[in-house]
């Protein structure tokens, strides 16, 4: 036994790295990437429309490095009636917005929260793995537990 650390994730990165994590999270949760830059198409006409609810969740401890992205750039993923939009707000924070017709705010908040957590997990996984390889660690074992935790066992020899 040596040391046990508990760390809270901080997401400070450029837009491409965040986009990669968004795609990973979307894939894991069954979402489909709709488009890189949203082009909002409004449906009008005689069709009866259900009220569209919208909820926004800010990714805590996040910062999207501004040189890589315009403030209006966003990535959109969809699953059924739920649409998740990941974007950078004016303060540079990463914001997850969930909207959908015929869904309650509670349902949307839950979806946004779930997506935020998965996005954080994917981002940290990508970053940790990249850094471990740079430090010449070899992966001994890697698994996803029943609780959806990712477990990585790594090793290296040092003089």
């Amino acid at each position, binding site marked *: 036994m040596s*040391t*046990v650390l508990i*760390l809270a994730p901080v997401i400070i990165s450029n837009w491409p790295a965040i986009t990669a994590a968004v795609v990973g999270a979307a894939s894991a949760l069954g979402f489909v990437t709709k488009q890189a830059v949203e082009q909002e198409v409004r449906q009008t006409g005689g069709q009866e429309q259900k009220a569209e609810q919208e909820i926004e969740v800010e990714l805590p401890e996040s910062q999207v490095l501004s040189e890589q992205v315009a403030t209006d750039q966003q990535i959109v993923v969809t699953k059924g009636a739920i649409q998740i939009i990941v974007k950078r707000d004016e303060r540079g924070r990463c914001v997850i917005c969930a909207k959908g017709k015929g869904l309650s705010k509670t349902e949307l908040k839950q979806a946004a929260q779930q997506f935020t957590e998965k996005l954080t997990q994917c981002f940290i996984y990508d970053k940790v793995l990249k850094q471990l390889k740079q430090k010449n*660690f070899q992966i001994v074992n890697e698994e996803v537990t029943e609780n959806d935790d990712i477990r990585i066992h790594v090793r290296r020899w*040092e003089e």
Partner: protein
Amino acid sequence: MEQHEMEITISKTGEIKVHIKGAKGKRCLQYAEWLKQVVGKIKDQKLTSEYYEPEVKSRINLDVDLKTDSDQQ
């Protein structure tokens, strides 16, 4: 040669638990600092018995050799 191991658990909420094994003393703290830079803030840290074990050092006793050389002259 020392074998350094890490067991990293990334929870579904993104919280990270790391168990560093084999690294003693300062080396262990260096890993902790590196992880802090990579993933985020340290919420909790527990040092276990291995941390307090002395680091292995090799040393050549030059005094003995020098004395022996000067005695011979």
